[in-house]
């Protein structure tokens, strides 16, 4: 559905995106994670042909993103906290205005979204709360059942109830609709993302399926009477903490067979080893710590 190859974009001396390559399979929910300013929005704007990359190329719906035209855009839904809506329009006028651009627009779908979101049709967009505006924007794209939904920080600053409401609406449309969701908030995606990528300072640190990510990350706690010598710790142990005979770390490439050998180097004093699955949040904390420590 989306493929990018080595996208790079500079703004003056700042490299907003560097060698960005991802593949978003059809039917997936791809979560592009990263802190504010990581380059997520830049990547999305390149995909939507709003800006051009300096180098590299991208394909969206099997078409070069630089040549993305009305036909492809009519099949893409784009919701962004950064997108300026025509604030002077009432919600009803806004939906009516959008309808004309999308041949696949379904009035019944729009009506049900309006009802589900509790949108006040006679109020102007500028007078709506942030959550309501996001709901209106989401209703305007879900009503034509896009094949590809691109969401840029759609939930930021929203309260939990509104967020759940929107997440549910999006999740209901998958897998018919492929979703690319850029966010800095893990809780937005944990429940429904199938793929995840992590972007930091314009560089993609990894991108893979959620299941694979969960299966290769483990939190390990080793209790020992004492650790023999000064063993060299494997590179794939992250966020290593050592205190009072307890060693804790996150193993980013957990392999039970290899793991035993790695533990054996601590000698016979090892009394207990606990291996637990990591939450997505813990995985990212481990990754962030790794980046900060420069490992």
């Amino acid at each position, binding site marked *: 559905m989306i493929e990018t190859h080595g996208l790079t974009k500079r703004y003056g001396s700042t490299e907003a995106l560097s060698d960005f390559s991802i593949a978003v399979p059809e039917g997936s929910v791809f979560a592009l994670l990263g802190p504010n300013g990581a380059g997520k929005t830049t990547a999305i704007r390149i995909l*939507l042909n*709003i800006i051009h990359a300096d180098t590299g190329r991208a394909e969206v719906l099997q078409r070069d993103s630089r040549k993305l035209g009305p036909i*492809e*855009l009519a099949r893409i839904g784009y919701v962004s906290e*950064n997108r300026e809506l025509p604030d002077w329009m009432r919600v009803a006028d806004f939906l009516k205005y959008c309808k*004309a*651009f999308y041949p696949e627009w379904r009035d019944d779908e729009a009506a049900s979204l309006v009802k589900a979101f509790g949108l006040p049709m006679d109020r102007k967009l500028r007078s709506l709360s942030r959550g309501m505006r996001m709901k209106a924007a989401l209703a305007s794209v879900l009503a034509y059942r896009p094949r590809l939904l691109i969401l840029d920080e759609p939930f930021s600053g929203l309260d939990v109830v509104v967020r759940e409401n929107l997440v549910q609406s999006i999740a209901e449309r998958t897998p018919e609709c492929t979703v690319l969701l850029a966010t800095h908030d893990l809780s937005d995606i944990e429940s429904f993302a199938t793929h995840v990528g992590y972007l930091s300072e314009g560089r993609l640190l990894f991108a893979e399926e959620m299941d694979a990510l969960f299966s290769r990350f483990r939190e390990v706690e080793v209790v020992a009477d004492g650790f023999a010598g000064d063993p060299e710790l494997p590179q794939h142990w992250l966020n290593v903490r050592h205190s009072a005979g307890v060693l804790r770390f996150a193993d980013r490439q957990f392999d039970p067979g290899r793991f035993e050998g790695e533990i054996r180097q601590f000698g016979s004093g090892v009394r207990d080893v606990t291996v637990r699955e990591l939450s997505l949040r813990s995985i990212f904390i481990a990754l962030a710590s790794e980046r900060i420590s420069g490992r």
Partner: protein
Amino acid sequence: MRLILHIFRKDAIHLLKEIAVMWALLAWLTQMDCWRSGYLPGSTEGWLNLLLPLTWSYLAAVCVLQDAVPGERQFWLALPAGRGTMFGAKALFAAVFIHAPYLISCAAVIAAHGFNPLMHLPRLLEKQMVLFAAVTLPALALASIARNAMQYLLLAIALAGTAVLVSGYSTNPFQNQWPPASDLRWVPVSLALALFAVAVLWMQYRDRRTQWSRGIGFAGVLGAVALYLWLPARSSASLEAAIHPLVVQGPITVRADQPEANRQAGFPPRSGVAVSIPIEIAGLNKGVAMYPQLDFEIAGPGIHFRVAGGAMRDAHVFAVMGRKQGDQYHLNVMMEPAAYKSAAHVPVTLKGHFAAVETNRVGGYSLSDSERAGLGRCTDSVTGDRLYREGGLRVVCESPHAIPRARLALTDTSTGRHWEAMLGEARGFVNYPTLTWLSPVNRSEAYFQLTSRDASQAGDWWLVPRTTLEHYKFEITVEHVTGTAVVGYELQEIELSRYLAKDSR
């Protein structure tokens, strides 16, 4: 087309108030233009001719800015509407809410002045083209490189400021000496501006390359201003000559005559020194009018003064091909004292070009024949006074077309006395804008000052006794330009001190 109409409708709904204000102003101007009989507009009409184009440019701009082109956050950028569709909607808006009302207004004014609008449709469309090139297109282009109304305003001020700054560097004394019908001077300037505006719009709506477009826009304005200021008068005259060449028998030659004794400067030399060289021009037909120098140069050993259509900041001389006195022409040169001193006593060469314009004079028309004479509809009336208190006899000609130069002879049929005035030479002294370029009706006026006195003294030649109003007639002579030539000359071995003219003051 469906989406163009859809976006157009959205803009129309949102800008309804602005459209209403603009239409009200246009209706006001139309009403005043319908009722105006003289060439001089009232102050409101004068100001509206300035204000309305600004209103139009603002309306065109805010329409474009509804879906601003620069930036990355606008809602329309991810809509499935091509950029051509978006531009089409904006162009349609300008056509419907700016051009169509103006066309209707022009037709109403033409009709109110007794002309059939359908008969003058080409003229009305020409006005539309002028409005498009001078207002709509630049406004659309400027708005396409602005993010919002404030930025549009700042860009407009920056461009206007640049234009003023550039023009401040020009002190070209020949700037206002272009031959008549030198509207041609505006043609390359307008074309340059329009081309740059089209380039900006093309780049913006095709690739949204705002920085490049802004650069092109600024270059365009600078280029157009520079072109207007520094375009040599000779180029316009040459173009005129190419369109309407002057037919002459043999070559035109110019040579200097012997100095005249006690020659007085025909123009006050103020802080300078006046040199007046009698010249003889052979080969020109009778009735050919001479117009001031297109360029002029004094060259000699260690001396070089050049006055051309170029930058003139260091010009020390000013030359005029003098008006005819009998059959004698004079080349009048005004020089700064220091410049004169350096060149006065050495033989120098004077080189230059001037325009020779031949007109065909066709006379014998009465006021009622004015349409046949190509002057449109001419009427005379006695008016209240402007400068003096005794009133005047005014002749106003109105036409949807350009009104040619014409001489009006007023004759007192009982005494045979007569007075002459050129149509279009009447001037009003007012402190508000008088350029009524939006009016589809051209007006030209001649004015004869009336007096209750006998007016038989020698100095009273310009005063018309009121008794003349009881029995008078007008005779019109129209001057049609039939040919133009650019004449070059080179006068060698001239010792300027021999031609020094006395100060006439």
